[in-house]
């Protein structure tokens, strides 16, 4: 899933400081799972903003809505009739949702309420870690199912570097060395000899390097 983290409330207040009618718009997908932008977080942010404006003595109306998804035309249409009432919408969706909102509702400013962080997984409640950088050219088949692009700090494809120590990365003792994980995994699969296969120079044109990407599937287009 896409993992996001809450933005500091001071930053959000700065965006909407002169607004009178604000909508806080949550998303029921990834940001709900990572507890950054779901219904619960919408309530918390809306309450915080109300308190803040109350303390300042300014009268501001703040509404709360949480959509099923913000990355889908169909669900975004649900606020078609009300969107124009607001002079600011704070979207707690990932960067995709914020942009999709902005593309759809031209006359209302849309502000991000979260920082979109990475593609990752929930290790346990309150701990999310990165697993994928969407390089567009998956190499997990040759690395024992562990991704050096997203999990090695230098995204070294023929690792580990000399900084691997006791299974940890040189940049942070709490961070597993991805190549230690790969080697352990190859060993468990009885495939350690695969370690000696050299990974050739990667085509990064499917990565961010190639510019904004799209997937076109004519077979499923109607």
């Amino acid at each position: 899933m896409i993992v996001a983290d809450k933005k500091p409330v001071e930053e959000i207040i700065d965006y909407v400081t002169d607004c009178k009618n604000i909508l806080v718009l949550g998303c029921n997908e990834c940001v709900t799972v990572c507890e950054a932008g779901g219904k619960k977080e919408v309530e918390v942010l809306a309450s915080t903003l109300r308190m803040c404006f109350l303390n300042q003595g300014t009268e501001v109306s703040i509404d709360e809505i949480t959509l099923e998804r913000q990355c889908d035309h169909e669900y975004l249409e649900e606020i078609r009739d009300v969107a124009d009432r607001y002079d600011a919408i704070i979207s707690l969706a990932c960067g995709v949702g914020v942009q999709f909102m902005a593309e759809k509702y031209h006359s209302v400013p849309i502000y991000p309420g979260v920082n979109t962080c990475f593609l990752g997984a929930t290790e346990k409640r309150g701990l999310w870690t990165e697993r994928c950088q969407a390089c567009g050219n998956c190499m997990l088949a040759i690395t024992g199912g562990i991704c050096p692009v997203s999990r090695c700090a230098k995204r070294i494809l023929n690792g580990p570097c000399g900084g691997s120590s006791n299974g940890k990365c040189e940049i942070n003792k709490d961070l597993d060395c991805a190549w230690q994980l790969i080697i352990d995994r190859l060993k468990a699969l009885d495939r350690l000899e695969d370690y000696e296969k050299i990974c050739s120079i990667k085509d990064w044109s499917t990565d961010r390097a190639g510019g904004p990407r799209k997937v076109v599937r004519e077979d499923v287009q109607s």
Partner: protein
Amino acid sequence: MSVKTPSKLEKILSSGNLAVTSECGPPRGSDPKAVTKKAEMIKDYVDAVNITDNQTSVTRMSSLAACIHLKLMGVEPILQMVTRDRNRIAIQSDILGAASFDIFNMLCLSGDHQSFGDCPQGQNVHDLDSMQLLQTVHLMRDEGKFLGGADIKRPPQMFVGAAANPFADPFEIRVPRLAKKIASGAEFIQTQCIYNVDKFEEWMKQVCDRGLHEKVYILAGVTPLKSVGMAKFMKNRVPGMDVPDDIVKRMADTPKEKQPEEGINICVETIERLKSVEGVKGFHIMAIEWEEKVPGIVERAGLYPRPEIGAEN
């Protein structure tokens, strides 16, 4: 191993002499004397001098520019290049730039992570890794081709090396990893600083058992300790460094004013012991900001005078 380039370092190694290399870190400024002064101190005592490439990710004068200063004063440079700061366009371009000054040696590295340096908020590139950089240099040299497939007019003639750390984890792949570097095209290896000679010997034995010592020239890395503080720092703070307790104790048991001398004694003794290790073809003496001690170490280790073999120009 047949000689493939005009490199003096390659000729010395191929002639069967123990090679001696050292290194200079470029300055945090643009004064060329900061490079040439260090090189002047050591030039008659070593065969070639590495110029580090923004080591520990701290911004410095470019390795290539400093190599050119060395070349112009008649010292053979080893251009260190990390993959952290350059994409494949810049890498190939810098290799050609170095080749245009007849720089004949290159050491291919991934580089320390930028979080250690003075620009922790910067991007890293890692378009290639160190093994892929080795492959790139070979493609350019042996096939005269760019990565894009076009021909290179006057291809570079680089003797190509890589680093190896016998002490990093996991130990079981340290030798397979060396094999990969050789398969990628490494012709010489400079190792991490050796303080744990027993562990190094264990690694070298595995290297020899696989016959890798006949495919690559291994230069054993040594760094003289200046103080017990440095020994402790290297032991505890530098990733992938193995400083045994007895070395730390030996430094700690030495009065402070005698510690630099003791550090050099340890370094010379290490070289002496490594000379008899099968597969060791030379030494890489990294006297960090202590270049003036290199001549004494080389002399005391019986590695002076250096062989009279010149690079072709």
